């Protein structure tokens, strides 16, 4: 069963204020089945380290809340 967009959005919303405070954001592009893709925007979008840390961390955080979650793609 596909995961509802809102559930993923809710996890992203938790860290969003920090990203926004630094002139960035994280955008949920699509949820397909049990996977989702997001895009970093703003200042940190071009930083490979930011991609790495946010990718791993956000994926882990989503999995904690939604155990059936599969993979997160960062565009």
């Amino acid at each position, binding site marked *: 069963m596909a995961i509802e967009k809102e559930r993923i959005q809710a996890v992203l919303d938790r860290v969003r204020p920090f990203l926004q405070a630094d002139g960035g954001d994280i955008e949920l592009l699509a949820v397909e089945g049990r996977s989702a893709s997001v895009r970093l925007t703003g200042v940190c979008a071009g930083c490979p380290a930011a991609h790495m840390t*946010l990718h791993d*961390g956000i994926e882990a955080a989503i999995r904690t809340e939604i155990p059936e979650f599969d993979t997160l793609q960062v565009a």
Partner: protein
Amino acid sequence: MMMPSQIPVTMESLVVGKSQRMRAVFEFLRVIGNSESTVLITGESGTGKEVTATLIHQNSRRRHHPFVAVSCALFTETLIESELFGHERGAFTGAIKDRPGRFEMAEGGTIFLDDIDDVPLAMQVKLLRVLQNRTVERVGGTRTIPINVRVIAGTKRDLKQMVSDGRFREDLYYRLNVLPVALPPLRERPEDIPVLMDHFLRRFFRRKNEDVPPVSDAVMQAFTRYNWPGNVRELENACERIAQTCGCGAVRIGCVAASILFGAAQQPPRTVSIHMSDIMSDIKKPEPPLQFPTAQELETPVAPPAPAPTFAPPSAGVMPAPISLDDRVREFEASLIRWALRVTHGNKSRAAALLQIKRSTLGDRIVRCGLTEPDEQQHDPAERAAV
């Protein structure tokens, strides 16, 4: 096994803590510096027990003699005796030559027995004898070797409780607990976080031969709100990570581990604003008079409310401008309500639960504080993306 520590420490280089509690600790360390008595350092993992032990050694008359640190958790019951007291050739299979123990290696200096709570009960008796008689006997040996060693013990557990539970010998506990030093966890002294952050960032950027780039307020917010279960060690690692990964000339939120961000998001906002630039200049100065945060500062969930704010005595003859306590309290209340509504996405029942007040009370307070609906958290994500 840890060998004599290489950490260069002086009181000044290590006073990376301006909270009252750390100052009290440092003050106590100064007092006991020249004492010869046994010290018991208690503190959670990562609070700096070994650093503190090193500091005590470096500030004692024994500083030119060895400092030997041993973690008692590292050895099995049979090995620990030989590690601490040494063994004679042929004492057991594999004992091919005489070997001095850690106590002998620390002769004239200080031995730091970390994780003392991990010493098995049978071994505790032997340790007690050593502390009482100031002599050791190597395993398999008959010679009694006098030792001149100051003992510092470290533990992350509550030894007194362990004594009650019968897991730690009472007599050894009292023998060790002559000069107790309790290191507070980082979450109980959040005002030290920016100071420590500055300290570690400097250290790690210096290793890269770079200056510390500016740190964004959002990063400060995240660091001061996070509760650091791994204490100073975790903070140190987070700073190392920043130094290793940050290449854009500014420390921004993308440099911070997401686990810290998620952890920080669960904590209520802090109310006292701390900026990196204020910190270093602040350290050596006397405590500034208490500054009341403005409504705007309260609004921004920046840095911690010092749990026990330090009230400097007013300088003679100068009366500060009056403030309205009621107004301040209301501003503070409003900022907490806004925070609760924000993290619950405007769900008033959950916000009320978070604030431990009734749902109806929250409604009244919202009206009283002139608050309308919370931030537009629930909007379409597409609108937010274009930052």
